[in-house]
């Protein structure tokens, strides 16, 4: 049991001078379920990419440290080599061909073949398939998982949970599989299916396969894993046997940043009790960020943060309100119901949006800064236009004047207001997005991931700007961000979204443990009141 199967030794990796892994070591033993946990960007995926020899690693200069399998150092240069070493991966998204049967999917490219007259003449590619043997193998693999699926069924009609098992069956059917990586395997499964999966994982481990289990769900980790390794900001924080730790402990280590509350409460700043925005039972069908029934109230004049892990639906809320993805539910703004799936009406009602997708939704990259800034206000509110009766022409001078004012106010670094938005740096692009939102003179500003992909200096500027808008103009702001530290630095309250719903609302001064647990979907540790 204690045999070392896989060993990472002092792994470091940087992308273009940006260190993402610092001296990480980790050992997976035979028959062990080893959980790997960390926030988004903690370095889990990079570590796995190194294990699989992904080209993204080699093309950026390789890595430092060594990877050892059964005591021997190996150099893996491609995913194919990783497979030869007995390393398998169960993907988060299913990589199955819907029109093929279960057997065909499991055996794809590893078919058992028989000779026939044609193949003897024209070569091995034309050999026949031995379905009987293949079905037998497939059934065996499925039985190992205790799954009762007919191996001749087509994948297309099967429930999601079954597809996950077929993926696993494909991996364990491979000869000499030693290590199996599960990347958030339960993300798309219902509770009962997830439970089955965890049981199957346990069974596989008992057969002597080493399992690396990546998940955000702390309760799962506690129930299935033997050992847990925590990464944070590319650093190895701890490796502990599960029996010596707890969900709260893990959560604390996962977040564990010294929080700086640099929000000095100015005396004249008042948040009224008046509700500006009321969201009731909002469902948004945004791929990868599905919202499944959110209730939330935003008070006039506050900065409300929306946090949570990637894929849990926090980004879907603002996108749903703004009509970018199909939504249903009820959203009331200043006592008036906002029509959903109607961007124009929402914008007209004084709600502005700075999207997380800066290059796609946020900007017209090939157009000058001035048009980018003026565009929404022009189209929605008929600003910057001269009316000639039948046709409304743009007021070039007014646009330029306004753009120059914004460039000065927000300190947008550019050669002129005619510079194309696409040629600006990330931080300056973000300022253009904010400028466009401000041009609408909104009463409510929705900001999503305002500092994503921006260097540290510019981050502070953007956050200061939001704070300033809130304090000086009394603008109500809803800020969605993956960076908890950022939310805690400027928000009044922070709603944590987990699995498409609001798990709870915390104060920025609450403990790391509380944040960590709530983000990971553990609810029983909270002080009452949460259903």
């Amino acid at each position, binding site marked *: 049991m204690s045999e070392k199967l896989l060993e990472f030794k002092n792994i470091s990796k940087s992308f273009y001078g940006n260190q993402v892994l610092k001296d990480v070591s980790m050992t997976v033993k035979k028959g062990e379920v080893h959980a790997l946990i960390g926030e988004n960007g903690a370095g889990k995926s990079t570590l796995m990419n190194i294990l699989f020899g992904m080209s993204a690693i080699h093309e950026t200069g390789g890595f430092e440290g060594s990877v050892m399998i059964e005591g021997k150092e190996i150099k893996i240069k491609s995913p194919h080599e990783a497979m030869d070493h007995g390393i398998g991966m169960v993907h988060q998204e299913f990589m199955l061909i819907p029109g093929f049967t279960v057997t065909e999917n499991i055996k794809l490219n590893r078919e058992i073949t028989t000779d026939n007259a044609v193949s003897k003449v024209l070569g091995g590619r034309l050999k026949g398939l031995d379905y009987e043997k293949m079905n037998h193998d497939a059934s065996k693999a499925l039985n190992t998982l205790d799954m009762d699926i007919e191996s001749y069924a087509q994948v297309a009609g099967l429930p999601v949970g079954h597809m996950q098992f077929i993926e696993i069956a494909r991996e364990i059917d491979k000869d000499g599989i030693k290590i199996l990586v599960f990347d958030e395997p339960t993300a798309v499964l219902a509770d009962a299916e997830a439970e089955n999966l965890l049981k199957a994982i346990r069974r596989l481990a008992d057969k002597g396969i080493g399992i690396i289990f990546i998940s955000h769900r702390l309760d799962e980790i506690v129930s299935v894993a033997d050992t847990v390794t925590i990464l944070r900001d590319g650093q190895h924080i701890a490796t502990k046997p599960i029996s010596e730790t707890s969900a709260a402990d893990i959560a604390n280590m996962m977040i564990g940043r010294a929080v700086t509350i640099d929000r000095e409460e100015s005396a004249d700043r008042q948040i009224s009790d008046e509700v500006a925005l009321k969201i009731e039972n909002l469902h948004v069908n945004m791929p990868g960020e599905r919202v499944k029934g959110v209730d939330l109230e935003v008070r006039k004049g506050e900065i409300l943060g929306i946090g949570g892990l990637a894929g849990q639906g926090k980004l879907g809320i603002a996108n749903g309100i703004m009509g970018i993805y199909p939504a249903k539910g009820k959203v009331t703004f200043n006592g008036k119901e906002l029509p959903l799936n109607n961007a124009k009406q929402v914008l007209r009602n004084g709600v502005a949006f700075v999207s997380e997708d800066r290059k796609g939704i946020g900007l*017209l990259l*090939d157009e000058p800064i001035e048009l980018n800034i003026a565009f929404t206000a022009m189209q*929605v509110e008929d600003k910057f236009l001269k009316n000639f009766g039948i046709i409304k022409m743009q007021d070039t001078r007014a646009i330029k004047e306004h753009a120059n004012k914004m460039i000065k106010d927000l300190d947008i670094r550019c050669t002129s207001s005619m510079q194309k938005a696409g040629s600006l740096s990330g931080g300056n692009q973000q300022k253009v997005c904010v400028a466009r939102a401000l041009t609408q003179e909104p009463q409510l500003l929705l900001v999503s991931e305002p500092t994503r992909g921006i260097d540290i200096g510019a981050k502070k500027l953007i956050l200061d700007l939001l704070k300033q808008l809130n304090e000086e103009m009394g603008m109500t702001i809803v800020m969605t961000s993956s960076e908890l530290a950022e939310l805690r630095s400027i928000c009044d309250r922070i709603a944590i979204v987990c699995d498409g719903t609001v798990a709870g609302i915390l104060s920025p001064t609450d403990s790391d443990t509380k944040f960590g647990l709530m983000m990971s979907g553990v609810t029983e540790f909270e002080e009452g009141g949460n259903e």
Partner: protein
Amino acid sequence: MLTERKKLSFKDIINGIGIPTLIIAAFFALILVIAHFYDLSVVTLLSDTVKRAGMNGLLVLAMLPSIQSGTGPNFALPIGVECGLFAMVLAIEWGFTGWGWFGVSVALSIVFAILVGWAYGKLLNAVKGSEMTIATYAGFAICSFMCIFWLMLPFKSPNMGWFIGQGLRETIQLDAVGADMILNNLLGFWIGEEFYVPTGMLLFFFLCCFLVWLFFRSKSGIAISAVGSSNAFAEASGLNVNKNRVLANIISTILGAIGIIVFSQSYGYLQIYTAHLNIAFAAVAGILIGGATASRAKVSHVIIGVFLFQGLLTSALPVANQIFAGTDLSEIMRMIIQNGFILYALTQVKKGGK
């Protein structure tokens, strides 16, 4: 330091115009030089260039709205062209002549083009992602459909019918209705013996260019451009992407319809049936040579492109005939340049409807 700045600006100018455009321009100049040495009249060639550019100008201009709206160059130009042809035929049948004929043709063609362009725009919205392919087939299909239509028309005008049987002739002479070169000759004048300036036609072309330029500075025009650059951005700003695409293609169809009227009066003949089957390709090549891409275009691209491309076509033919007597090389060259350019531009198109 000063020289460095100058250098940079020179490079900027080259990049601004675009290297393909410069190559074609150099090639055009080269042909004119060769023509001079073969004792061909360069002035006549230039005069023809101006005339052909004026004839084709609106057809090239028709590419602009559809490119800006993100549906790509309007390969379905024949749809607009057939609207124009039908309008002209109707105007002849109803007995209009001269300016009356021209005015009625333009007015009718606009009406037809709005209706047909609207339906065509709806079609494009149903096939997002493969607009250019669908447009090409739609253009071919409408031509074939109209072939049947021309034969079935129960028109009585002796100017248009076959001498025996039913239907319209392949080529209808416009001098019979007093409309031959009617726009060209408006305020037209000779410079010297060989250079004729078709003032009316050029003014009409530039007027249309100006109107289109103005339109793309209006609220609707800017909305169309935004839809073309980024559907997601436009939607997030509350624009109706589909409506804007339809509007752009209506405008494109109208320009195509008026374009063929201008073309026909300058040519002196009204050609129907399959004469204009491939008309879109020359127009697409024209705007691309002018520096446009399949996703972005300006009025300046239209003007530069139509003069360069038509110049090349008009002057290459006599020069090639001089050098390689008895061959059809100039037509082959035309095909290579025209289709080569379309091919080049299409390889630059980014995949998907965003």
